[in-house]
């Protein structure tokens, strides 16, 4: 299906086209179309239940694991439709890392957490694993805090450290895209600041899509902001413009706190 490919702007990493999503009979996303630029931070904002998380999870097909979920439309990543039949989900998820709202370290050692992905993908060499673990933890700004206790259980880390560990774990499989579902919503301000610094740090190398409830956070960390409401994409544009001169009334109402 060559004519379905969108071989235009190399700066566009993810191209969403006419995306519909249903939980059973309930439609959660309506005809979403948007481009997500490479190596930029795109924030998804909107009131609870507007479909932000569902949309995020559509980008690495995590919605597949829900019974009765149905998707139509297409999502092109590097010009490849990830909803085409016969797509390799494993390599898709290797390319698209994900960090969840509630940090979910595995009840294993810090080392084993970060090495989990590489091991799954066949890295066996102990030295190579150690290298990947170190590099990923450094990248996630956690190395200095845990380098002396890599064999300790990850559940002993603080909430903020756990979330950075999850980021390190996602980075260990060398993704190109990082999906973050409210990564700082359960953290104290200090840990949140660290995560935001980290996002700022990572944007040079990764395409980041972040769901957030926090307007200030979206304004601080993102280049692009998309506002979703009741399953519809209301508006998308440069963050500055969306926050200062939104085109749509709905967006303005939400941003100024009139509802949500």
């Amino acid at each position, binding site marked *: 299906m060559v004519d379905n490919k969108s071989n235009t702007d190399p700066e566009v990493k993810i191209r969403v086209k006419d995306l519909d999503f249903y939980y059973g009979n309930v439609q959660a996303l309506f005809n979403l179309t948007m481009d997500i630029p490479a190596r930029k931070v795109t924030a998804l904002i909107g009131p609870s239940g507007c479909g932000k998380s569902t949309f995020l999870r559509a980008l690495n097909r995590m919605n597949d694991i829900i019974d009765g979920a149905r998707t139509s439309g297409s999502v092109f990543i590097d010009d490849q439709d990830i909803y085409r039949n016969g797509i390799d989900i494993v390599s898709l998820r290797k390319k698209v890392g994900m960090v969840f709202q509630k940090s979910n370290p595995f*009840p294993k050692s810090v080392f084993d957490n970060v090495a989990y992905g590489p091991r799954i993908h066949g890295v066996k060499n102990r030295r190579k694993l150690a290298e990947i673990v170190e590099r990923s933890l450094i990248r996630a700004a956690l190395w200095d805090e845990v380098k002396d206790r890599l064999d300790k259980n990850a559940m002993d880390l603080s909430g903020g450290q756990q979330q950075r560990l999850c980021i390190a774990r996602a980075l260990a499989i060398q993704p190109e895209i990082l999906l973050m579902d409210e990564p700082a919503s359960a953290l104290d301000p200090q840990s949140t600041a660290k995560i935001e610094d980290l996002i700022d740090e990572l944007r040079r190398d990764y395409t980041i899509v972040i769901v957030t409830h926090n307007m200030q956070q979206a304004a601080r960390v993102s280049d692009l902001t998309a506002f979703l409401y009741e399953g519809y994409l209301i508006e998308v544009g440069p963050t500055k413009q969306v926050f200062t001169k939104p085109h749509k009334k709905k967006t303005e109402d939400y941003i100024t706190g009139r509802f949500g």
Partner: protein
Amino acid sequence: MRTAVLQRATCWLMRAMTYFIVFIIASIILKILWNGLPAVSWEFLTTMPRRSGAEGGILPAIVGTLYLVVGTIAVALPLGMATAIYLSEYAKQGRFTRTIRLAIVTLAGVPSIVFGLFGLGLFVIFLGFGASIISGCLTLACMILPIIIVSSEEALRAVPRSLREGSLALGATKWQTIYKNVLPYSVSGMLTGSILGIGRAAGETAPILLTVAAFYLPKLPRSIFDQVMALPYHLYILATQHPEADKVRPMQYATALVLLALVLGVNLAAILLRIRIRKKRRW
């Protein structure tokens, strides 16, 4: 004032009932210990029975029961775990899984003598295994499968969904996720099921009556197609079928004591193992 009295009375009533249960268990164990311990000796545990079990030991019954327990677990545990994994991780939840679960619950409620008859019909006669260890193990395995499946499913459900998602999001396949990030945390719960199963498999008489247990067989089995003696059945024989039932009273209690010790010993080992595994689990 009156509510306070009522409150205290209720509390005392509950407490009395709890103590009553402890009392029953303690008196059973004490009676068996009291009457059985004098008859337990090294000879009793390690030699063949003589004169239809009126003299000598119970070695073949001990060995027989151990074989049955090990064989039953070896059959039922993989089968039950696989079923539980399929039902809770793979199968689409709906009418199909509901029907299967109903069947499992029904299976748990079937009287054990019916399992005995089923084993006689299928394993002993139809499949031609004869009265043998393998027939007995398969019959007992059918009986304890529901216990293992139900507790394994519970153990799997106790693992938070976020751990599965975290693994899948890293590009792990479903099986890798289950194997590396679900099973390690649910093994302890699955062991609980096998603990209960072991207790039942070791103690039941009816299912082995028709499929494996020998009335009197003073030798050890050579293969899984041999008959064996088993402790519960031997106890039953000594207590009700033996021509000198009154005279062999101490042997009966001693046999009961050994059976009790065996079951409690196996349970204790499994419980200790579970505690060790559980210590490592935190979320």
